[in-house]
């Protein structure tokens, strides 16, 4: 949409304070039923698909929307792309209020979940679709398409049709096609969902490389927490159409504000907080298993092994507390440790000590509004 160059100067840091946000959502709401007529229209009519969602995404950021299916993350993306229009709230892109603008007038481009490549056009013409829609001059189109095919490493396959490509190659075409217009932000709807695990890892680092190379804001929708944690500068966790928490991967993993966020981002022990009430989060990798009782300053609990899952480098151990903690009996615990650290004779039924430092636990406070 904006005819800027494809490769801006990338010496600058990712986020410059004071930069105008690329994407800004202000209390955006959308109900099922009404004008939103997705497949959930009937049964869920009247309920919120997205409720009072406010988000602000900075230029150059790699931002992820994470949530289980039905959390409203794809709907949010479609709202930003213009395929849905909110019942309430404003959507600003590059500072312009584009709440009601049609998709073709928005400076964002989308990578669809199923890629949505045009089957009647070859790779080159698929990628050139955007520049041609912008009525760019032929030499300019040639230059841009050539450049972006280079970036996604598909120059060799320019004359192939989509059905002649592998899944990973189709993915690259979809990326190139959406990036060639040099959008203010690239919207990615579960882009790696259809790929097998190995290819997924490759494409994950490809996404990262391309984002760094081009400096374009990426907004990724995913339900894969590893993907979100490893790729994002910041991420937002959505739950039932509402924003649970926004922050860096580290913040959200270590200091989640709710049990929903805590458990969605990884395995979690939620311990009752004896002093203040409520719950404290203890990540399983911070729990130590040993034959010796806790030392001074440590917390501890005698527990019995219920399940053992050897995963190579690490072992996942599920335990049940023996003598209770804060009067509770049989508190379920999960520990993840490197296999090198664990007693060799560990087996289901073994009793041992779970130990941790109080400082490694985090109190789940209410989410800030």
């Amino acid at each position, binding site marked *: 949409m904006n005819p800027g160059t494809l490769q801006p100067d990338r010496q600058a840091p990712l986020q410059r304070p004071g930069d105008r946000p690329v994407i800004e959502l202000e209390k955006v709401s959308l109900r099922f039923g009404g004008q939103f007529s997705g497949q959930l229209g009937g049964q869920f009519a009247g309920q919120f698909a997205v409720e009072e969602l406010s988000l602000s995404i900075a230029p150059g950021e790699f931002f992820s929307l994470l949530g289980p299916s039905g959390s409203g993350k794809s709907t949010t993306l479609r709202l930003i792309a213009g*395929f849905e229009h909110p019942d309430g709230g404003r959507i600003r892109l590059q500072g312009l209020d584009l709440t009601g603008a*049609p998709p073709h007038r928005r400076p964002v481009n989308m990578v669809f979940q199923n890629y949505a490549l045009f089957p009647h056009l070859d790779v080159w013409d698929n990628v050139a679709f955007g520049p041609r829609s912008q009525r760019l001059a032929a030499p300019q189109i040639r230059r841009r398409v050539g450049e972006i095919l280079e970036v996604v490493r598909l120059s060799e396959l320019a004359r192939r049709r989509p059905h002649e490509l592998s899944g990973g190659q189709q993915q690259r075409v979809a990326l190139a096609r959406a990036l060639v217009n040099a959008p203010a932000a690239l919207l990615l709807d579960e882009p790696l969902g259809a790929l097998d695990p190995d290819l997924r890892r490759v494409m994950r680092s490809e996404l990262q490389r391309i984002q760094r190379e081009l400096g374009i804001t990426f907004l990724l929708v995913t339900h894969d927490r590893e993907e979100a944690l490893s790729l994002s500068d910041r991420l937002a966790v959505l739950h039932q159409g509402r924003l649970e928490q926004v922050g860096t991967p580290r913040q959200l993993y270590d200091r989640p504000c709710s049990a929903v966020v805590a458990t969605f981002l990884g395995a979690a022990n939620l311990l009752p907080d004896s002093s203040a009430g409520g719950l404290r989060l203890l990540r399983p990798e911070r729990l130590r298993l040993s034959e010796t009782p806790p030392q001074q300053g440590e917390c501890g609990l005698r527990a019995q092994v219920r399940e053992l899952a050897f995963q190579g480098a690490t072992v996942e151990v599920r335990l049940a507390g023996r003598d209770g903690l804060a009067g509770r009996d049989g508190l379920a615990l999960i520990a993840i440790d490197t296999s090198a650290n664990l007693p060799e004779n560990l087996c289901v039924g073994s009793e041992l000590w779970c130990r941790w430092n109080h400082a490694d636990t985090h109190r789940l406070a209410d989410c800030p509004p």
Partner: protein
Amino acid sequence: MNRIGNVLLAASSALTFALLYAPVAVTVLFSFNAPRGRFNLLWQGFTLANWRHPLGDPALTEAFLTSLALALAAALLAVLLGGLMALSLARARLRGRRVIGLLVALPLTNPEIVLATALLNLFVGIDLPRGPLTLLLSHSLFCLSYAALTLKARLAGFDPSLEQAAQDLGAPPLEAFARVTLPLLAPGLLAAGLLSFSLSFDDFVISSFMAGETVTLPLYLAGAFQREISPQVQVLTTLVLLVSAALLLLATLSGMPTLRKAVDLPRRDPFGRP
């Protein structure tokens, strides 16, 4: 046993093909006949004279051209209206869409003679003289359901995110339709057009009610068989045959996916309409 079975299978296949193509062969053969008298029905001798003057029979030529123009116009109209019908059936979120879908398919089971008499009632009622206009209206009408259903099937498998992707890339809705949806629908449009064309081209029942003074090829031939049959009849039908065979060959041999997909569909309706 197996060998006998194979032989029998081969023989029955050969017979089937012979029966299918014998009339075609006879037609081609008799276009080279030199008949003595008014009826080109008995083999008299070989000549190329008929082929030198394919349009040598003025009445026949006129009927032939009338049918050609009528079939083309009816096919165009049917594809246009049927396409719009199919689009709204596949896309619009209409209340009672299934009922409407059924109503579109229903005329296929309607005997032609019923439609013919009904249309006659209508046109007489509104005092519309029978002629080219009533022919065109009635032909497009009975082609409409075929065209709509052919295109609806095509649209049912159409991924709506393709059009959204086009819009997302900066194409306004109409442009997105023209650059993505239409090219992908082209095989369906062509198939619907071919089907409508051939249905209209050889229609007799409805034409005989609607024609007035106009003479279409089937009407002319039916009448001519009582007076005379010139060898040009066989020449022109052979030409029609050649054109459709050439189209088919082109579609199979060439890399034209549009054409290939179009002829893949049944040329005749599944309800055994004449």
